[in-house]
């Protein structure tokens, strides 16, 4: 299934990164933002999940900021720029969190994958 997930994800990301033809006006964005989402977020699910296995375990080794930026990027499709905006941190800082987080994840997963 991984290959199919990869296709769907890549296609979705391509669409997401395409310049938007119609921007929502601010009023609508605020309205949409004001709708509460009662369902548990992916980060919550990740914590609860027993299945996510090795990766979930390795995520625990990351700092809070690294975890948060990687989770937001993966599940919500945020780019570096959007992450910086969302987390209200400079772009360079966010990029570093992501990069270090990924490096640490890889080191953690490496022995099992080898």
């Amino acid at each position, binding site marked *: 299934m*991984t290959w199919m*997930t990869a296709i769907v994800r890549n296609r979705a990301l391509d669409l997401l990164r395409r310049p938007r033809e119609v921007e929502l006006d601010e009023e609508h964005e605020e309205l949409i933002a004001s709708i509460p989402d009662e369902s548990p977020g992916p980060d919550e699910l990740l914590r609860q*999940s027993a299945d996510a296995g090795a990766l979930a375990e390795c995520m625990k080794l990351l700092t809070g900021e690294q975890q948060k930026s990687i989770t937001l990027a993966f599940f919500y499709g945020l780019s570096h720029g959007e992450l910086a905006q969302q987390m209200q941190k400079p772009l360079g800082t966010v990029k570093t969190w992501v990069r270090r987080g990924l490096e640490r994840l890889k080191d953690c997963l490496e022995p099992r*994958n080898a």
Partner: protein
Amino acid sequence: MKLENGQLRERLAAEYVLGTMPPRARRRFSTLLKQNPALRRDVMEWESRFLPLVDILPGIQPPARVWATIEARIHGNRIPRSPASFWQNLSFWRASSFASAALALALVIFISLPGPQAPEALPGRMVVVMNDMQTQEPAMTATWEHGKQGERIVRLRVMGHAEMAPGTAWEMWMLQGENQKPVSLGLITTHETQTMVVPAVMASQLDNAAGLAMSVEPAGGSPTGLPTGPVLYYGKPLKT
């Protein structure tokens, strides 16, 4: 780009899979990916690390029309006649009233047939004469018979060169008696003769319907799963 540098390659692959690359970098990277096997291997490694995460997300059932559209595209615009395994998978959609309306919409397949003449009322067939609600004149007839797999083959005849206002759609409903919500049979056209197939799971509902109605809805059909516009035609079934 210095792609011989394994570390850099690795890092870019990770960012690509994670999805953090800005648009232009992403496009450039996709092009490089096609030419560079080492890069593809790095990307696949990161995919195998990250993509299992997707499994923890709750599934979202796409609306029935998405499937219908995909099927239609696969089969070159010709909407296929009820592939059984597909419909059987839909049973769980009937959880909510909206879902069941969507189900009804999806389950009904229309095949506009220019050929066949208006069917005669033969014994054992169901016939509904639907009157124009304003003039009280007959405006449409619906007759149906049993298909081979228990489905109902419904032939519609629209009389008098009816016209549909632009940006609207005609939606057929079966009425279930008092205090029960009408069930959508899907959209129809203004063609004089058309055929639709109501699947076996809905057959008894159709056979026992208290009446049929056609309402004017926004293009694409009722957004709520219940009639939202005026009912133009309405009629009760006669058994022959």
